[in-house]
């Protein structure tokens, strides 16, 4: 029973990851750089970060763009590792998709959230939604001033950093998987400018 339940959760994440890949690759002038779906271990994070930095450098991307993409990927993956909920097998079912398009990159990340925490995540995102860079910087500095890392190592600055690096081009969604879990997904656009 547990196995079927866990498999269904992983299949749900995989299906979402696949549909993002398919939709993106249908667009003209795009290149799929990376798609990783499944449990996100610390070793997976290391390999993804190494691959991204190396790939973008080999492609001759400007340093500031590499740094922006790297920052968004670091903060997103650490968010998944710190805040993502485990499924019934203790796996952090999640995905990350990175695609190149004209003028920049798109990054999609998804992780599990307990249904009862969806309201809290929505309200954190609502606070920064539609704000411009200087308003986000004010919140960032305030969080830094009084910020304390939680036991898990998070401080809430990650999402603000992602918003700053992407000029607040954030989109997010919630898809209920079952009576316990929801798939939270975030789409970030990073441009060269």
């Amino acid at each position, binding site marked *: 029973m547990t196995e079927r339940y866990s498999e269904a959760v992983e299949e749900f994440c995989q299906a979402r990851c696949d549909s993002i890949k398919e939709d993106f690759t249908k667009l003209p002038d795009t290149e799929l750089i990376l798609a990783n779906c499944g449990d996100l271990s610390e070793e997976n994070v290391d390999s993804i970060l190494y691959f991204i930095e190396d790939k973008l450098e080999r492609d001759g991307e400007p*340093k500031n763009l590499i740094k922006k993409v790297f920052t968004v990927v670091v*903060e997103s993956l650490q968010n998944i*590792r*710190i805040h993502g909920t485990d499924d019934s097998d203790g796996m952090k079912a999640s995905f990350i998709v990175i695609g190149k398009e004209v003028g920049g990159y798109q990054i999609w990340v998804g992780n599990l959230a307990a249904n009862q925490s969806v309201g809290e995540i929505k309200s954190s995102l609502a606070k920064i939604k539609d704000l411009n860079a200087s308003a986000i910087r004010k919140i960032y500095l305030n969080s830094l001033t009084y910020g304390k*890392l939680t036991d898990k190592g998070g401080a809430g600055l990650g999402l603000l950093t992602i918003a700053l690096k992407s000029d607040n081009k954030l989109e997010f969604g919630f898809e209920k998987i079952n009576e316990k879990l929801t798939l939270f997904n975030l789409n970030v656009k990073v441009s060269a400018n």
Partner: protein
Amino acid sequence: MSKFFIVEGRNTPKINFDPESGTFEVSGKSYPENAERFFRGPLLWLNKYLDEGKPKDIELVFKFEFISSASVICVLQLLRQFDKLRENGFGVKVQWHVQDDDEDIKVTGEDLESLSGKLVFNYIIE
């Protein structure tokens, strides 16, 4: 008091606190998953130095290539300890290096300077 030294890791900076020479350096990339755990050692060492160190002129050297948001909080905690050393009569000079015209690192330095009491940063553009 003896030196505090940690070699640079895959995602952690080199830390070299040398009370004898008066140079305290943090350099490299800093994005460990659990930044609080990584920086606990140098913070504890600094707490001890606050108790035992005799006032003198010291130089803090920061040379970051990359720093994650969680690490920024920990570096701020280090800086606040150094500001306490300043209050205790130490002369504290902060050298914040900015490599390759890296605007992010410069802005991070300015943010940290604004939150680190009366410490004054000298920005070294390389």
